[in-house]
């Protein structure tokens, strides 16, 4: 993938052994995301307590990048408020734009993903889990 081996290994590790994989039994929020270009699908289930993400799981049918991103996300958002998690998602989106140069400190964990941003066709794969997260945040607002 044309990224330093260390990043690649990190991603593959996540893809092979995804964190928080599956479905919560009785989630407070759930959202699906779909990539029309390849048919990949992802379902995110969350449980909340006073606005804070208590538990989360992702069920992924997707490529290694999509799976790794979902796995990393689940690690990052646990114990965050849903609002903060959604904000992280936005910062992640911004850091994937062509112009963005620096990677914000708060996204250090996502560096292996962001390193792949020159592969513009894979951005949607990286974002699928985060799209579902933002969807949950929207649901919670209304």
């Amino acid at each position, binding site marked *: 993938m044309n990224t330093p081996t260390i990043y690649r290994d990190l991603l593959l590790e996540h893809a092979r052994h995804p964190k928080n994989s599956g479905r919560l039994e009785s989630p407070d929020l759930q959202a699906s995301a*779909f990539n*029309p*270009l390849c048919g990949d699908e992802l379902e995110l289930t969350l449980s909340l307590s006073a606005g804070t993400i208590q538990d989360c799981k992702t069920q992924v049918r997707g490529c290694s990048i999509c799976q790794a991103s979902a796995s990393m996300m689940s690690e990052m958002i646990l114990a965050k408020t849903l609002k903060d998690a959604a904000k992280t998602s936005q910062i992640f989106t911004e850091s994937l734009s062509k112009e963005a140069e620096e990677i914000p400190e708060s996204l250090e964990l996502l560096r292996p993903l962001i390193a792949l941003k020159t*592969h*513009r*066709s*894979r951005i949607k794969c990286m974002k699928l889990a985060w799209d579902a997260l933002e969807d949950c945040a929207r649901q919670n607002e209304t």
Partner: protein
Amino acid sequence: MQNFPLTVKAREDFPLLKRKIHGHPLAYLDNAATTQKPNCVIDALVRFYENHNSNVSRGVYTLAEEATEIYEEGRESVAKFIGANDSGKIIFTRGTTESINLVAAAWAQPKLKTDERILVTEMEHHSNLVPWQMVAQKAGAELVYWPITPETGSSDGGRLDLQKLDELLADSVKRKRSFRLLAVSAVSNVLGTVNPIAEIIELAHARGVPVLVDAAQAVARMPIDVSGWDCDFLAFSGHKIYGPTGIGVLYAKNERLEEMLPFQGGGGMIRQVGRQTSTWADAPQKFEAGTPPVAEVSGLAAAIKYLRNFGMQEIQRHEYELTTHALKRFAEFEDLELYGPPETIERCGVVSFNLRNVHPHDVAQVLDESGIAVRAGHHCTQVLHKRFGIAASVRMSFGLYNEIPEIDRLFSALDQAREIFLK
């Protein structure tokens, strides 16, 4: 004779202008039909096919990513060029005609009710008339014509009168027969009239009427500002702004985009396809079924870059001076009938006329013998020509590379037409 630094520089960029026609240097004065292409546009096409050609959006390999990038950057450059704040509002089509048909089929048709009407003007191009006739007919609705000001050749001929528009709009409110849409061109392709689009849109919106702007003639001739105008739809063609054939643009503002049903069905515009029903991608992809014209988009982006280098204000000034000169020359001849406003201030780049008692075809053919390319016919505006009581006219229309001596050559060559047909 004035000196045009812009032209002198520009002519070098257009290989076709080096052609000789019947032994004469070509004076290409049919820019309202299509413009010539600068080297940078031709090069963009070649560069795309030689280096980046691939299908867009659906591939993860390097070439496909490059092509997708070129395509989406083209969208962004169009957005900036016409003052749209979001490239998601830019839909690529085949040309102005398809852009207007898209609005007709995907937005107007599903919405139009029998007791509603569509407002058009007498100066519209067939491409901004016939789609509305087809839509209206299917719905059992009708077109209403905003007439042009009456006296041909007099100082207020061939324009759109804002007060008249206000009356039409007020009347429609009174009669409870609302207009679903006002479809109006920014610049007439026959009269060269520059219509007051900002004011038109303001009046129409005050009565809740959305406005589609046919900017086919305007985009190469003046700065466009869809956000400032707040227009609902705007359509134009690549080939009329020094870009390639086979590419056009539809701008739609968010409210309208949301109201639009899909246009054509096929690859790229879907989200999920079931056996009986499907769901749709978001705009703009929703309206772009099939493999898009990627090479053409790269050429269009090159054309836009070329125009921005000159500056649209500069080009506008240039065409203003050419038009002024042409109108001045017309005043010298009693046997030339001029159509449209005789004041340069209200027109740009396009001048149509007839040599009395000589058919426009015959005039154009004689001009061609001197290397002068002008158009003869109804220029896809039969309603307008009927309004003037004529079947056809001769049209000269300018581009950024035209020069005053070319216009003078035209007036000299008219003498030959007189000699042959009127002696």
